[in-house]
């Protein structure tokens, strides 16, 4: 594979770096309170909020057992230094009472942590739908080398580079990968989950506010890995409808051919935009697709040919409604599948 032209920004970064540093106070550094929310320490949704709380709780609990070590070690060192006056008991090597303490306290700490861990793990299970009176928005996510495709099955559109979500409404993600393992992650909203070829994982998130959040892949998958980022734009309901309408109006049709010639090729979102002829594309902006094949997601998962470009949103018929990702797998195709990969790898070497 050839080099990534985008990464080769050369020239002196120094003056620019200094100007950046001077603008930051430690607090903003820690919370990353920039235009884009980048961390769960600055949570924008219920899941991330609970995770932040749990994080500090674990830190505090472990401090009970860790602080004594950090404080007392220097003290012991000083008091019992060679040549000091403190009592010296070279044969003293056990004490019932201390034994009880040093097993007991950690056991209690771990017991408390374990109880909370059990509850929180269940409560924050990514597969668990969120409680809400609004029906969740279905989003299907497909990971490619090195970009994400977001399919809105109920709306019959798809985007790349930007994920647009309505505020205050639960989102129900289904994820898969058209290539190697990758991990879908929007820190300010909640945890990450793996996306794997031929498999479907699920994730439930919700945003409390409108705003822009960072999203990314966390699992290394090759040279363009660091470019596999996207912006999450959370908007109110009206804007969301506008977005959908806009996509239907302006979207590029997505069919088998485009899928294979653009999406499946290695390259990041900007490369895809270039291949689609979107010359003025800016990173973080959406590439819109509409109409899209109805069984696009499922076709990708099964690596089965999907019907081309029928613009026909079929709400609530998606397999997402089933308790198990989807049950009725068609028999696996008999022929070995075409490699879904750019074959140019070998030849370009």
């Amino acid at each position, binding site marked *: 594979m050839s080099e990534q032209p985008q990464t080769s920004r050369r020239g002196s970064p120094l003056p620019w770096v200094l100007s950046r540093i001077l603008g930051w106070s430690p607090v903003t550094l820690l919370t990353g309170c920039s235009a884009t929310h980048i961390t769960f320490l600055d949570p924008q949704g219920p899941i991330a909020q609970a995770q932040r709380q749990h994080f500090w709780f674990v830190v505090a609990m472990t401090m009970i057992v860790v602080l004594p070590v950090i404080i007392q070690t220097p003290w012991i060192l000083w008091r019992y230094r060679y040549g000091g006056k403190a009592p010296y008991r070279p044969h003293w090597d056990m004490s019932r009472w201390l034994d009880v303490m040093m097993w007991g306290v950690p056991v209690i700490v771990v017991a408390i942590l374990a109880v909370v861990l059990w509850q929180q793990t269940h409560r924050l299970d990514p597969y668990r739908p969120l409680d809400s009176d609004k029906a969740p928005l279905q989003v299907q996510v497909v990971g490619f080398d090195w970009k994400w495709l977001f399919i809105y099955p109920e709306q019959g559109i798809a985007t790349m580079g930007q994920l647009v979500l309505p505020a205050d409404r639960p989102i129900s993600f289904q994820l898969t990968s058209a290539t190697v393992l990758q991990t879908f992650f929007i820190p300010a909203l909640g945890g990450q989950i793996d996306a794997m070829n031929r498999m479907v994982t699920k994730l439930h998130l919700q945003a409390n506010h409108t705003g822009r959040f960072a999203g990314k892949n966390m699992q290394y998958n090759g040279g363009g890995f660091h470019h596999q980022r996207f912006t999450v734009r959370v908007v109110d309901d009206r804007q969301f409808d506008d977005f959908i309408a806009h996509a239907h109006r302006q979207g590029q049709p997505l069919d088998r051919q485009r899928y294979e010639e653009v999406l499946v090729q290695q390259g990041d979102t900007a490369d895809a935009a270039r291949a689609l002829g979107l010359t003025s594309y800016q990173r973080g902006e959406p590439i819109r697709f509409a109409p899209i094949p109805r069984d696009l997601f499922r076709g990708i998962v099964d690596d089965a040919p999907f019907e081309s470009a029928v613009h026909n949103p079929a709400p609530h018929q998606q397999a997402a409604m089933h308790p198990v990702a989807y049950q009725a797998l068609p*028999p*696996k*195709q*008999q022929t070995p599948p075409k490699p879904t990969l750019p074959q140019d790898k070998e030849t370009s070497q």
Partner: protein
Amino acid sequence: MTRTAMRHPGLNLGPAHADAEDTREEMIFGFWVFMMSDFVIFGLLFATYVVMLGGTAGGPGPHELFEMKSVFIETLILLTSSFTFGMASLALKYREDTKPLVIWLIVTLLLGVAFIAYELKDFHTMFGKGGVPSRSGFISAFFSLVPLHGLHVLAACIWLIALLGQIAVHGLDSFVKTGLLRLAILWHFLDIVWICIFSLVYLGGLT
């Protein structure tokens, strides 16, 4: 069983073979530990095999590929070889002359070779039915587990031949004895692995 104190796993030769008892104890214990490590490898491959049972990808499954008759014959061959190796061990322990020992060993070797030959033939039939590892995850899992046992048998046979050679050159000295005791452990151990294979892979698959 034996009244002589056991000093190591497997057959103990007892005081009549006191030459190098101590090193033997270490050697055999060490080999035993190695076997256990090997056992873990097999255990994990078994687990993997079970996990891959669903990965037939529309290709042939156990019912299409496995044949009970040949497995049964293979089982009998291997079991008998374990017994003949036991007889060899007894000859080693109680007889001074090498002749019965060598005869039993050769019988064992022939059985081992027969087992391998039969297994190869079996694989050949499987290939004929489209059961090649590149066909599906399930068949891959099969071929990463069962032939590994076969390879072990092959290694054991080579070792046996080497030991026969050592007997020819050096006679029945303490090196050969230790070698035979270790090989015995390997041989019986392979039988145990085979029990797992025929029960889980073949019989389980054919049920």
